[in-house]
């Protein structure tokens, strides 16, 4: 039985270009208080464009209705649980949005003098200090714009340290359970990728690692807890194996929501890591960005961090550009400052104890879901779950129903699907991360939904195979989209 949702009418809406008609406007500029300038005379006639073909012409009323109607076609955290494993879709506090719009912050220009930017620099410094305390690392850069950007920065910093010791080395080791960004990052940083297998308990195979690591290995990129939601309990031994050969331990901080306040990577041999502010620190995903991907390192790597570096000079903050060993810049200006503001607001709201309590609740929620559905689905790893739990569709696949079908059926039950078919090492993976933001009631509805779907798979698999049934559109033809890509509107 579907308890969380039922359908209601929502509006159809054409594209902007189909709504447009000549002569309509949605703006009014103030009168020009200086003489007009003839563009062709000032710029040269060949540099001035004709009108922009088919660019929209709409009134303000049509514009707001257009985007409001579109918005009602989206699911969102504000509507309910978003159990995407590895994505940490937690509540996005609205005070964070409010403070990011404080005029002295939102309208701060990146080139206003340091004397007129002390408030912004203070915010960055305070966030740096908090992130160092949470991770147990020695230095952090806030410049990277997203998690994958942080990964690249971190690997480049690692490479620079190794190069300064005489040899950047050739290989980066990556567990087969890793996010796809890890190998892509290593390749872009100029490394060869070597995959290493997980053991039967869903953890990195330590003896296998010991056999592989040699002086050619630059680093291991590990995710902890890993993408099975399992804590890599041998983390210190792993670090030791790498360090013995002069290699570095990189940690993908995507799953830091399982650790904040309880375990610090820096206390356990991690040399360099990135954080995802849009995961652990609640900044909104916004339909796919913006994010923030700070990179934290141990002291030997600090000289190589991107410029500029924040530095205290007497009673004020300054930006230091004179860093001879730095890898350079990875982005113009200083990073996604507005995202940094939101992350700090989240940390201030929680405080140290609150961050720890959030972690406890996140792990409780994942464990509760695991208990609630393990009679109906096949758990992927026996080890205890941290902040997420991974199942496989093995039992349902026997009835011809796969993880993607179950995910689509969850939509009819009023939920966003879990992460489908990842990690790759679990065939038919169902990766569920509730975060700490879910109430017991929401979790119970979710468990009921998955249990009910398991029953449907037994009794009426067609209903699951054809899901979703209650959405504006049914399953889309992705093959057609890719075969002959139509990636822009054109007039008929």
């Amino acid at each position: 039985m579907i308890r969380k949702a039922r359908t209601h009418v929502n509006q159809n809406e054409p594209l902007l270009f189909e709504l447009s008609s000549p002569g309509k406007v949605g703006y009014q500029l103030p009168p020009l208080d200086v003489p007009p300038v003839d563009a062709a005379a000032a710029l040269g006639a060949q540099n001035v464009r004709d009108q922009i073909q088919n660019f929209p012409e709409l009134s303000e009323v049509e514009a707001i209705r257009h985007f409001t109607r579109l918005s009602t076609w989206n699911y969102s955290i504000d509507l309910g649980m978003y159990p995407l494993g590895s994505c940490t879709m937690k509540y996005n506090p609205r005070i964070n949005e409010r403070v990011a719009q404080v005029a002295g912050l939102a309208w701060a220009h990146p080139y206003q003098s340091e004397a007129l930017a002390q408030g912004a620099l203070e915010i960055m410094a305070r966030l740096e200090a908090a992130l160092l305390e949470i991770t147990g690392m020695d230095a952090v850069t806030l410049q990277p714009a997203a998690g994958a950007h942080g990964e690249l920065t971190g690997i480049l910093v690692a490479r620079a340290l190794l190069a300064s010791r005489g040899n950047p080395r050739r290989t980066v080791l990556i567990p087969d359970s890793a996010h796809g960004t890890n190998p892509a990052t290593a390749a872009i940083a100029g490394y060869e990728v070597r995959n290493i297998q997980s053991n039967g308990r869903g953890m990195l195979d330590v003896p296998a690692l010991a056999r592989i690591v040699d002086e050619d290995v630059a680093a291991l990129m590990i995710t902890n807890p890993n993408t099975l939601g399992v804590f890599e309990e041998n983390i210190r031994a792993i670090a030791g194996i790498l360090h013995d050969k002069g290699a570095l331990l990189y940690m993908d901080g995507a799953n830091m929501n399982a650790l904040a306040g309880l375990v610090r990577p820096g206390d356990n041999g991690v040399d360099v890591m990135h954080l995802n502010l849009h995961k652990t620190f609640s900044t909104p995903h916004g339909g796919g960005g913006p994010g923030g991907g700070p990179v934290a390192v141990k002291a030997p790597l600090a000289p190589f961090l991107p410029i500029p570096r924040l530095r205290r000079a007497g009673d004020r903050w300054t930006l230091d550009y004179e860093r001879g060993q730095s890898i350079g810049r990875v982005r113009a200006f200083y990073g996604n400052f507005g995202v940094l503001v939101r992350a700090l607001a989240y940390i201030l709201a929680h405080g140290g104890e609150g961050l720890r309590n959030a972690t406890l609740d996140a792990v409780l929620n994942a464990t509760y879901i695991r208990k609630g559905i393990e009679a109906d689905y096949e758990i992927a790893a026996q080890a205890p779950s941290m902040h997420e739990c991974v199942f496989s569709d093995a039992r349902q696949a026997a009835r011809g129903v796969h993880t993607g079908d179950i995910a689509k059926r969850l939509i009819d039950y009023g939920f966003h699907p879990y992460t489908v078919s990842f990690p790759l090492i679990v065939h038919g993976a169902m990766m569920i991360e509730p975060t700490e933001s879910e109430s017991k009631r929401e979790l119970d509805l979710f468990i009921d939904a998955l249990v009910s779907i398991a029953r449907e798979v037994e009794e009426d698999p067609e209903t699951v195979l054809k899901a979703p049934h209650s959405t504006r559109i049914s399953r889309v033809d992705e093959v057609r989209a890719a075969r002959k890509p139509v990636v822009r509107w054109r007039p008929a």
Partner: protein
Amino acid sequence: MRYLPKSDSERGEMLAACGVSSLEDLFAHLPAEVRLNRPLAIADGLSEYEILDYFRERGAQNASGYASFLGAGAYFHYRPVLVDAVVSRGEFLTSYTPYQAEISQGTLTAIFEFQTMMCQLTGMDVANASMYDGSTALAEAAMMAARITGRKRLLAARTLHPEYREVLATYARNQGLEVVEFGYQPASGALDLEDLDRKLDAATAAVIVQSPNFFGIVENVNEAAELAHRAGALLLDVFTEAVSLGLLAPPAGADIVAGELQSFAISPSFGGPYAGILATREKYIRQLPGRLVGETVDTRGNRAFCLTLATREQHIRREKATSNICTNQALIALMATVFMTVYGKQGLRELAEQNLAKAHYLGGKLPLRFSGPYFNEFVATVEDPAALNQALLERKIVGGLPLARFYPELGDAMLVCATEMVRREDMEALARVWEAAQ
């Protein structure tokens, strides 16, 4: 804690269901030595009011209430109220990347519209769903050009934004790409095409130019493109001031366009978050990094949109992907989309014309360093730029950007920007102080 929606008795029920007696028990399997055995040294949690207060105080420490003439890659433009009305809707703000098309048509449709408008503005055939910012869009575009041509050398104009060149250098170094710079004409401030021609060779993957360039000058992109194409290289055109697209002819000779959309209703916000864009010719679509939304149909024949050509991307291709990029800047791109919708065909033109008029009014009163045609910023000379800026601050004016830091040969010059938001009286005040400083 107000963000944690459980009572202690509910926690107790859940723990019992999990077969443990305390929250700590959930972590009993962790080796003791990995645990942090003390509270985090972070102050106790604050109320909403205290948080607001803290950030208001920080905002007040920054410049506020000043007229500003800064540009240089981040511009002060008016943000129509519809922008925040739309992006603060939870359905846009708090949704994930639209992998599940059935419940993400809002985001997907908006991105499809965004991609279309980017093509209309740049004259390109395809545009992606946005990049982190202009500087990283440029770096990705350069790597894309190297993949397409199989060449390893990049010729970058010195009039390209200096910080963009720094980002390009970081990416290029580790990709085995060589970046060579070519100069500008000392009188006009425009590209030195002779220098470009001398440096072009059969190893050159791309010629990278910016228009309007860092000095605000509108470049002859098509001439540079002809030279590049003659050598078998691509022309990569960069823009940092998107409002110029309302007035300037799109670069017909460009093969790839990389730009920054901050001017389209994105707050300067001390440098980010912004949104970059990458657009190109149809034939290069499979080399384009980043997310792309495509049109398709559902099983009932309804028009629908979905993420497409994912086989270029890291989650499918892993180490063989075109880029390690995972996300775009969806919410920021949505701001730009609403902005473009509000201004529309007429408004974008009028807005650009107002910028042109303001900048030329101010430029007419100051000693211009270069003779080339400029849009809404320009370089003007003054013996001591720092002293001038100090004098301006006393009148609540933030002056221009002294150029010595990036161009030692322009130690007596500042980059000055005038958008539609500067008032005539502030321009006149600036001009008076400038004259007194001469």
